[in-house]
């Protein structure tokens, strides 16, 4: 009898998981389905694919023509922001984790405390004014700088915990072997924190890729638009071309799906890093 109860429980558990999974994937599936339809097909049958012969491949070709430039802009901004962010965060976290200096506690908690400040809502106006005074309006550099600084605190916070967990004897041994600070970062911190760095990079990349408000405010010329701004423009003024829009959204999602597919193992490992003693 207890076995049957346990099986029933298992079944309920699995059913719930499938339900959640379905909720998460259903909009994506719909997006994909609609990307092959014209407006008439969409009105008649919005829920599932039509016959393959009726698929509107030109939606994808048209969307690619529009969004490819936005994707390139987004890749430039995201890669540059993530790189800059981690290049600054790793040495900062190393110093925070390894060295004692006057005011370290105050500095660290001030940094961490700033994570609790409201983000875009509170800072958008001042940030725009700052960008304007720097002469960076309508310039991708503004997004790169803001993106790299924005992810900084979380990265320092997570990396510091991780570096603190690396046995101090490894650093001491490296010091005796002849490694300076950058030598220790290059030879110990970077090789040992691959999964955490990978996770942080993916998280920052996602943040930058999905950022809408700031690019919308800062970028004026449409050849500079990033993908979220570009996708908004796909939404026609008088008639919505649902198929074109959804093809554009699908193309915009693809780089992230590919990125996540290849880095999933790192990502999961990184999320649990430091959870148990290794």
């Amino acid at each position, binding site marked *: 009898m207890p076995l049957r109860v346990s099986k029933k429980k298992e079944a309920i558990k699995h059913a719930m998981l499938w339900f959640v999974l379905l909720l998460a994937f259903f909009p994506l599936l719909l997006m994909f389905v609609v990307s092959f339809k014209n407006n008439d097909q969409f009105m008649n049958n919005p829920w599932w694919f039509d016959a393959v012969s009726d698929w509107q491949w030109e939606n994808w070709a048209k969307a690619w023509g529009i969004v490819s430039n936005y994707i390139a802009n987004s890749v430039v901004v995201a890669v540059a922001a993530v790189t800059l962010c981690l290049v600054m965060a790793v040495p900062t976290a190393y110093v925070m984790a390894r060295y004692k200096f006057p005011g370290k506690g105050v500095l660290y908690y001030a940094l961490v405390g700033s994570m609790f400040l409201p983000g875009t809502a509170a800072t958008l106006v001042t940030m725009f004014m700052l960008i304007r005074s720097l002469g960076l309006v309508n310039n991708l550099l503004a997004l790169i700088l803001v993106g790299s600084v924005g992810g900084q605190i979380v990265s320092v916070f997570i990396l510091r915990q991780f570096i603190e967990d690396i*046995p101090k*004897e*490894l650093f*001491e*041994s*490296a*010091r*005796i*072997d*002849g*490694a300076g600070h950058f*030598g220790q970062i290059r*030879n*110990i911190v970077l*090789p*040992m924190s691959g999964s955490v760095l990978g996770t942080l990079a993916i998280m920052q990349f996602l943040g930058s890729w999905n950022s809408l408000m700031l690019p919308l405010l800062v970028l004026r010329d449409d050849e500079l638009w990033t993908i979220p701004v570009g996708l908004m423009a796909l939404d026609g003024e008088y008639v919505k071309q649902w198929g074109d829009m959804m093809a554009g959204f699908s193309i915009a999602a693809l780089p992230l799906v590919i990125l996540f597919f290849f880095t999933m193992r790192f990502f999961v490992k990184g999320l649990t890093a430091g959870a148990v003693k290794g």
Partner: protein
Amino acid sequence: MAEIFFDNICKTFPGGVEAVKDFTLTIHDKEFMVFVGPSGCGKSTTLRMVAGLEEITDGTIRIGDKIVNDVPPKDRDIAMVFQNYALYPHMTVYQNMAFALKLRKYPKQERDKRVHDAAKILGIEELLERRPKALSGGQRQRVAVGRAIVRHPAAFLFDEPLSNLDAKLRVEMRAELKRLHATLETTTIYVTHDQEEAMTLGNRIVVMKDGVIQQCGAPLEVYNSPTNRFVAGFVGTPPMNFFAGSLTGDDGDLWFDEGSFRIRLEKQQADHLGSWTGRDMICGVRPEAMGLVGDGRFAGRDNTITVRVNVIEPFGESMDIYVATPKHPHIVARTEARSDIEPDQNLKLHLDMSRIHIFEPGDMGANLSRKGEPAVV
């Protein structure tokens, strides 16, 4: 190769904890020096000050002709082996061993030669392409030692390197380290809390407590002639037995009176300790200085104590007998093995009076029986 000099070294940690106090010592070229003492005695801190991993609060450390107080660790020409091996987990054994040479920009050929020479000495040639996680504890230890010896440093520093190994492997590695020192003849400082390790490895040992050198000398000198009660109790397994009592004079002889027994001190000791007659004292007797039969070194008059047997631990040829006097319930004697001794029986033990130590009262009481001056530090 180098001598290492400590001149009045002090280390005070933030918060005022004094870890090392007035540490003055000379470690000779090619010497194997062991720092031994209980946890928190300052031995590791002293070693770390030599390595440059800990700042020196006061005093100077010299390696060879160079005062190294402000010299960074990499420029001190030392190599250190840590308790947890500190092998870089993402590097192979070869890369671990060659790492310091690579940072110092040795040519690839020279690196190769040194790593293979060291691997050959340590018998780890077949492990060079493995990563540390694929090695056993003993193999990791060998790699850690290998990483130190490829550098050909002026001195080796070992910080409790065998503590993480099981008992059997520890004994094996101990012999290996001794052989290695005989081969390389590099000045070595070795830190351990295990007095047996200290006794077997060191040319000389330094016994420390609370940041202060209690005694420095050859292992047998420290064992046979401890400066105070702490050293006497710390060095030796099982530890020395201590009886509280007093010195009394009777019939022109000097006696140690415990209350339940009294023993007559040898004339030489009596002459030495005569001025302490009438004072409370502690008598120290090593377990092996007690015998079951009153002949040979146990022969003599008034050198017996009557005890009650608690527990017997036979080891084959010898045995430890845990006994009690009415005043001292935890006494241990190491004697030849015999099968006619039972728990709860009364037993007469004969003492080797030439190996009796009389200490001043207190945990750190000085050994008044020591002949000559304290060991030169």
